[in-house]
């Protein structure tokens, strides 16, 4: 198991280098002269040349690549042109908000999606199955921005149950930063009212973000459960007199969870990407919003930074999924 984990971490490093190289290539393939963009539309030719030298853009591509990778290793993601602050610092400031949103949305997707998938597999072709099918199809089909706005209009504007947007009201002093996750930090600081307020803020964006993910977890888990429930060892478990609930909830679910886990890993990366939309709709101060505003002002270093960070979290999530796989399935451990 340890060597397995070690191998997985090595792959993680390798993939990370790959992503870094890829982002470098993409920025250099993309049209437009970065130096000219930085200099602005009214800059003289001299100013552009100065900036080009300053940013090292006059060197050959391989040289630039070496410098770029070297910077990455030392944690230097460059500077934002707009704020002139290090990108790493800014990304780290915005990342916890996004991670909090993604964690809550993912938890929602798993906690609701897996049992619903189980139920619709057990009662296949019954009313429950049909209802979840309609539910999950709409989950995949509804565009996030539209769904988000509808939720805002209904629950925030019309009913007034939940706040429209943001992470905390301006008047609320945020709890002392420990993890950066408000839900955790407010509990650590013993401030239940702040916990409650931030929970109310995260509900709507988390629902919007998790809906498609929940739907696909549900579908995958349903399909797997149906398959597993027909397998021989389930027949055997029944014949040996094991109670039906135990068969479904333990014997079958553990087997069906494997593909569902793979789906969760994939969906995690997808979610990080969709935060760009959801954070914009809900004015959620995360890296998605940061990336959008940077992109709009042609500030390319932050965009690369956000891409790398999202890539990093995605790979970490999938490595964890791989480890969970091995933890669940003994056959993978000995392989």
């Amino acid at each position, binding site marked *: 198991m340890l*060597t397995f984990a070690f191998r997985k971490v090595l792959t993680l490093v390798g993939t990370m280098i790959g992503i870094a190289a890829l982002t470098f290539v993409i920025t250099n393939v993309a049209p437009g002269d970065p130096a000219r963009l930085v200099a602005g539309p009214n800059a003289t030719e001299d100013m552009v040349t100065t900036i080009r030298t300053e940013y090292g853009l006059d060197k050959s591509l391989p040289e630039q690549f070496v410098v770029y990778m070297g910077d990455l290793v030392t944690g230097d993601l460059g500077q934002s042109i707009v704020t002139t602050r290090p990108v790493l610092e800014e990304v780290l400031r915005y990342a916890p908000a996004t991670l909090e949103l993604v964690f809550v949305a993912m938890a929602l997707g798993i906690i609701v999606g897996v049992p619903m998938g189980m139920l619709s597999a057990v009662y296949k072709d019954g009313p429950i199955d049909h209802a979840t099918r309609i539910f999950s199809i709409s989950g995949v089909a509804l565009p996030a921005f539209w769904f988000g706005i509808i939720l805002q209009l209904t629950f925030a504007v019309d009913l007034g149950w939940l706040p429209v947007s943001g992470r905390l009201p301006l008047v609320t002093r945020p709890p002392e930063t420990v993890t950066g996750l408000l839900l955790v930090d407010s509990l650590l600081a013993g401030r239940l009212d702040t916990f409650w307020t931030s929970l109310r803020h995260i509900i709507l964006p988390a629902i919007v973000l998790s809906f498609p993910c929940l739907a696909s977890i549900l579908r995958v888990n349903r399909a797997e459960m149906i398959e597993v429930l027909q*397998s*021989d*060892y389930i*027949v*055997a*478990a*029944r*014949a*040996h*007199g*094991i*109670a*039906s609930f*135990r068969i479904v909830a333990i*014997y079958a679910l*553990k*087997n069906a969870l494997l593909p569902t886990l793979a789906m969760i890993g994939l969906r995690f990366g997808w979610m990080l990407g969709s935060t760009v939309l959801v954070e914009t709709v809900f004015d959620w101060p995360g890296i998605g919003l940061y990336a959008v505003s940077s992109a709009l002002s042609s500030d390319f270093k932050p965009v690369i930074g956000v891409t790398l960070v999202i890539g990093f979290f995605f790979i970490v999530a999938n490595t964890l999924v791989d480890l969970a796989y091995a933890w*669940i*399935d*003994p*056959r993978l451990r*000995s*392989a």
Partner: protein
Amino acid sequence: MTGPLLDIQNYRLDIATFDGPVHVLKDINLTVNRGDTLGIVGESGSGKTVLVRSVLGIGPKASKVIEGSIAFDGQDITALSEKDWTKIRGIRISMIFQDPMTYLNPLFTIGQQISDVIAAHEKAAGHGVSSKAARRTRTEDLLDQVGLPNPAMLFDQYPHQLSGGMRQRVLIAMALSGKPDLLIADEPTTALDVTVQAQVLDLINSLVEKLNLTVIMISHDIGAIATIAKRCAVMYKGEIVEQGLTADILSAPKHEYTKRLLAAVPDIDTASAKVAAEPAVGASPKPGILLEAIDLRKVYRSQSGTEVTAVDSINLSVATGEIFGVVGESGSGKSTLARMLLRLIEPTSGDIIFDGKNISGLTGEPLRLMRRHMQFVFQNPHSALNGRHTIGDAIGEPLRIQTNMSRRDIEARVEALLDIVQLPKMFKYRYPHELSGGQKQRICIARAIALNPRLLILDEPTSALDISVQAQVLDFLQELRAELDLTYVFISHNLAVIRQICDRTIVMKRGEIVEQGETERLFLSPQHEYTKALIESGRKTSRAANLSAPAGS
């Protein structure tokens, strides 16, 4: 109470399908008394599995009892609630299954699975669930009882770490955990090797004696039935066509179907007259060597770095026109060998000479062209055909890949091939699921001979088929060889089949050839211990099945 333990009266069962109800069981009457050992023989689709599963209330979902009753110990169990079943399933009636790999949950340890069954029984019995340690002790006792060594270690192992025979013993231990009155064994030896089969049958026999078990065993293998069951019922198309003492049925079958079934069982102790006659057909005065393997080795390396030698320094030569047998148990490397001969997997070292040409170094186009001369027939025809392609597509595929034949020519060739394998031309429009197992295997053979190959490698071509179908396919293969001038490499674990059709045979064990020679000599005077053991194990069930014939050689 002194009534029968199990009493099935006029039992009729339908299964609803898309095309309306199918009458799966028709008017079944069967009684089993305490201490009885009853065998149910029948081919796949005869309804025997549905019948015994109905006894346990785990029949197919869409099934519906039309008429009749099943009484267990005086209680009608056809309409029990799930809750009432928990008091019977696994406790009073328990079951062992065919394929011990797929019937054990791969993600739970052996100990966990058996302890769980024990806990479920304790819960159903009403007295509380005993402690983990107590259940562990009981589990280890059970494992010990079925002859498994080192139960304490086994407790924490996973199914994939055990051999087939051990897994079957685990399943038996699980079935015994409730001290059942009635044990149902559903093809308990079918998926096992010959020598392991004999051991498992011995185990069941000894348990019957020791625990005074009542057993219903179903099998398509008459030999296995004869070893266990004193009484026997023959099922055919959902009906019991004959029942009585096993010895009587074997020696004097009354029903037409039983007679056919018994006639089809190959006998390990009978030399095949056919084989002796065959070489004359070959007519060539001195048959050349078609295929040669020199020092062939295959080493697999697992990710953790340990090396497993699947095939070790194999030397063999197959003469043109002969049927070359490869016999061995699972894991002996026979399938690996077969696939290497065709270059479907790469040998680690060694040479393969086909028709005087060394093909072990071939790659790309020359290898692809070489493939038309040598074809492969797989064990399981059900999975070897793509369910979404018509039969015509399947047979035509090699022609489309390897030749420039026009669409019309391919059509004509497909029809001709169907004719060769003795199937109607119209079959080309059908899909695999519409065909029986034997028909599918003929299709696979038709596909293999589409390019007029010179060599066919058949990997257990009859293992997945019913006995009567097996006999047909074997006959057909022999006819085909004479007709198309083919050479076969025939792989099987079934010694009786090998003896029936192979000219020369090699015996493999753990990747090595332990003995080789003329098939008849091999059977009459085996030299190597392993060959002797193999033949002896095979003889055990074979002889039991061939009571009607004069026993022994």
